[in-house]
């Protein structure tokens, strides 16, 4: 099905099942520990060997020698694979990294060996017997020091935008503006810290490979691994039915998959490898830290006349920029604009996708700047954002937003949150020892369209089976796909079986960039549309005026049980959704307004988030229960971004020193209050036949800035360098009388 004109009325609009809260259909498996993840496939692989990855202990240079004799002789060891014995594997999709092979070391904890043994304990013990010599070169790892040497760079995901994106004359507009701002903001390197480590079980049989792995997009991993192994993609089967979180870390193939495959081949037995937790931050990818300079100019009425946003970050040679200016292109109106990015070289783990790449760090900065500007103008920050709303792409004013209800998000949120009670004078509200403040921020994230396929089968017993290589990384894919099939075919959700994450199934969009839900359900919509036609033909109905409901197929006064269509055998339909130019004709995006109330201990600077609200405009919400979980999860990550998360660089040795879950702090229960979410109801017919849009990332966009702005409102202290830890407040807290 090719989607190139705005969707009219269709069977999903009935919303008898789609659009309603449904408990997860895979919930019982997850709460009983019976959902199988990649490293625990005893059902599929009886007697695996165990691999232990050894990471480089330098950031940059070459491996000159690996003495593996003692490790090879250690009890239980079956093989030691060293990087010097393998050719450098070609980089996979969306990465510049060699995951294994060759002498060159480009970042700390790059995999340089795999020890394979009969047991986990034997592999781990033997790994410590390796003697590895390096020629090391000085690593570039301090962003502030390298930034002056940075080069202009284009946005890999926005190739249509000029490297230096200028409209009008920003300098003149700033010079003429009665109120201006020129500040610099810092966002740190972050790590995904998903709870399930990267993990793969690999088994070869007759030259063909099967891997059970933790992948967000099955086809990306499969293609990358096939290429790295020099294998035809048909000879590689990948299964990923359950994934213990990803947030972008599992978007691209990692070393566990390649090494499990190589290890299994070397020992002639299945092999499983989990990337040890302390390796993940330096071996995996990161969200790149940024230094952003923002300049704003406005007239006295609070209308922006100029926006300039420049971001610099660092990455490995040849790798990508964190597109922090991306949201600034589209979130606010202003006739004069100047946006650009620069990239410095850093020999750290590769900067790559993490939840809402670009938008999340960009809005961390921009939405503090907007708060500061509102303050300078003496305008309420909610009103200031509303005043600068745009309904068109500022770069191409004839290009409108398909649906954009940011103003409604802000107004409704202000009302629900009790924003009117906020005292605009910072540091003026006390509650015992606590200083209390409220903050707001706007959220913006693009809606991405990707082709996606699915297969649906009407079984002879009347049940439906859905198969697609779509993944459920916690997002609720199983459930929304079941809802979609049930709605389309007029059966209860209990009659639908959904099978996911298997490369033998039709290729789907996968999970990432908040593109999963809308595209995968649209692919299934396409398959169900075909199945409806087949069913109608079988039953002698004209598909145009047929209604599928309550297990019956009805046209006019005639009706027949759906089951009858399959009496001679199951009916199968397979299709995929592809898209025309509607995303070029219209800007498709999601919006949010984030509100936070934060209390700051006037003596210690300790910060507690007391309550938070997000109002989200993301098209049709397919399942409000699971969608809400996506948003509160993102808000939780936003609190982490605001108050605690930062990878700290050891500039002597060139690596992230807090590379585990003890040193890299993420929010825990005690940090997070009850979180409120409101969804606006604005289905977007330009996005897809489902009229849905992305939901997984918009909840993060603006969340950290709302907390930061609340800290400022509470204390009067403006911290522009995330995370806002109490040491940055202590010497500036109001004097205690």
């Amino acid at each position: 099905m090719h989607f190139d004109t705005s969707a009219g009325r269709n069977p999903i609009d009935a919303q008898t099942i789609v659009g309603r809260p449904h408990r997860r259909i895979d919930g019982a498996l997850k709460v009983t520990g019976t959902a199988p993840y990649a490293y625990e496939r005893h059902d599929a692989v009886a007697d695996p060997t165990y691999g232990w990855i050894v990471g480089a202990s330098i950031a940059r240079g070459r491996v000159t020698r690996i003495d593996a004799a003692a490790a090879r002789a250690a009890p239980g060891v079956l093989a030691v694979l060293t990087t010097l014995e393998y050719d450098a594997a070609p980089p996979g999709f969306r990465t510049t990294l060699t995951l294994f092979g060759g002498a060159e070391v480009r970042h700390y904890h790059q995999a340089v060996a795999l020890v394979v043994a009969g047991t986990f304990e034997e592999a781990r013990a033997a790994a410590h017997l390796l003697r590895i010599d390096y020629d090391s070169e000085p690593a570039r790892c301090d962003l502030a020091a390298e930034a002056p040497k940075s080069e202009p760079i284009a946005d890999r995901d926005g190739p249509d935008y000029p490297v230096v994106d200028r409209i009008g004359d920003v300098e003149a507009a700033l010079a003429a503006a009665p109120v201006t701002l020129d500040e610099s903001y810092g966002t740190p390197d972050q790590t995904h810290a998903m709870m399930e480590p990267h993990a793969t079980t690999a088994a070869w049989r007759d030259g063909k490979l099967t891997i059970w792995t933790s992948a967000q997009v099955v086809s990306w991993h499969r293609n990358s691994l096939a290429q790295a192994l020099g294998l035809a993609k048909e000879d590689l089967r990948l299964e990923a039915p359950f994934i213990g979180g990803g947030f972008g870390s599992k978007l691209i193939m990692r070393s566990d998959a390649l090494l499990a495959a190589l290890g299994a081949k070397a020992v002639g037995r299945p092999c499983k490898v989990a990337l040890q937790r302390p390796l993940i931050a330096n071996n995996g990818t990161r969200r790149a830290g940024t230094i952003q300079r923002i300049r704003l100019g406005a007239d006295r009425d609070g209308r922006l006349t100029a926006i300039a946003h420049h971001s610099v970050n660092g990455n490995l040679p040849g790798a990508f920029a964190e597109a922090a200016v991306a949201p600034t292109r589209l979130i606010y109106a202003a006739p004069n604009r100047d946006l650009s990015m620069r990239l410095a070289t850093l020999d750290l783990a590769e900067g790559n996708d993490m939840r809402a790449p670009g938008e999340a760090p960009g809005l961390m900065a921009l939405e503090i700047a907007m708060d500061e500007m509102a303050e300078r103008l003496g305008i309420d920050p909610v009103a200031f954002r509303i005043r600068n709303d745009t309904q068109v792409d500022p770069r191409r004013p004839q290009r409108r937003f398909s649906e954009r209800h940011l103003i409604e998000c802000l107004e409704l949120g202000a009302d629900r949150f009790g924003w009117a009670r906020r005292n605009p004078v910072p540091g003026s509200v006390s509650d015992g020892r606590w200083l209390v403040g409220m903050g707001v921020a706007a959220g913006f994230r693009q809606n991405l369209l990707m082709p996606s396929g699915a297969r649906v089968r009407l079984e002879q017993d009347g049940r439906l089976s859905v198969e697609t290589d779509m993944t459920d990384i916690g997002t609720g894919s199983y459930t929304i796909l079941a809802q979609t099939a049930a709605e389309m075919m007029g059966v209860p959700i209990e009659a639908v079986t959904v099978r996911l994450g298997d490369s033998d199934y039709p290729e789907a969009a996968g999970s990432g960039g908040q593109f999963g839900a809308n595209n995968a359900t649209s692919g299934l919509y396409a398959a169900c549309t075909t199945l409806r036609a087949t069913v109608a033909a079988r039953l002698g109905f004209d598909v145009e005026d047929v209604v599928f409901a309550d297990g019956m197929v009805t046209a006019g006064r005639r009706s027949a049980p759906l089951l009858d269509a399959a009496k001679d055998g199951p009916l199968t339909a397979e299709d995929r959704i592809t898209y025309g130019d509607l995303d070029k004709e219209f800007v498709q995006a999601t919006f949010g307004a984030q509100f936070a109330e934060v209390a700051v201990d006037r003596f210690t600077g300790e910060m507690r988030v007391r309550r938070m609200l997000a109002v989200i405009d993301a098209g049709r919400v397919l399942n409000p229960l699971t969608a809400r979980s996506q948003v509160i999860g993102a808000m939780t990550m936003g609190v982490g971004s605001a108050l605690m998360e930062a990878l700290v660089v050891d500039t002597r040795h060139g690596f992230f020193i807090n590379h585990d879950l003890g040193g890299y702090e993420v929010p825990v229960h005690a940090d997070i209050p009850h979180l409120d979410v409101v969804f606006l109801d604005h289905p977007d017919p330009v996005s897809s036949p489902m009229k849905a849009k992305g939901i997984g990332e918009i909840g993060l966009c603006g969340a950290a800035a709302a907390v930061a702005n609340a800290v400022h409102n509470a204390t009067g202290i403006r911290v522009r360098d995330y995370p806002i830890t109490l040491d940055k407040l202590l010497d500036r807290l109001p004097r205690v009388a």
Partner: protein
Amino acid sequence: MARAQAAGTMGSVVVALTVNDERRRLDLDSRVTLLDALREHLHLTGTKKGCDHGHCGACTVLVNGVRINACLSLAAMHDGDVVTTIEGLGRPDRLHPVQAAFIAHDAFQCGYCTPGQICSAVAVLAEVEAGVPSHATGDLTAPVTLDTSELRERMSANICRCGAYSNIAEAVADVAGRS
């Protein structure tokens, strides 16, 4: 306490455990953690490994009724112990009330921290029942009540990167309110 065996692998130990009401006897490398004994030797993979060194709580199980991080404990230390894992609390067709509440409140997303969260929650309810105080307890002489700050404090060793805390708190409060 188990003794090193004369025969078998060097450094092996025999451990007898009761796991989910079943008596199990294992001949293990003495370096095997309780977590890996469960996951790799008994194939009870409901207990998760998130970090393998006590930072995340994914491996939380009940040992003699008390919650511990199974990754921080060698199996050899548990000879004679009674271990309850997520599989022992309930099954898909016969859910424990906390498991059912997690589904009702959508108190998880990816599900990887979930068995640990549920085992912790079950233990928290018992701790409160037994009057065990926490860092958040105000009056040490009064009976402990499971208010929001008690609950959040007691659950804080279980990380959920999917960020389901708000829903987890409601699921557990729901069960606590009912019992």
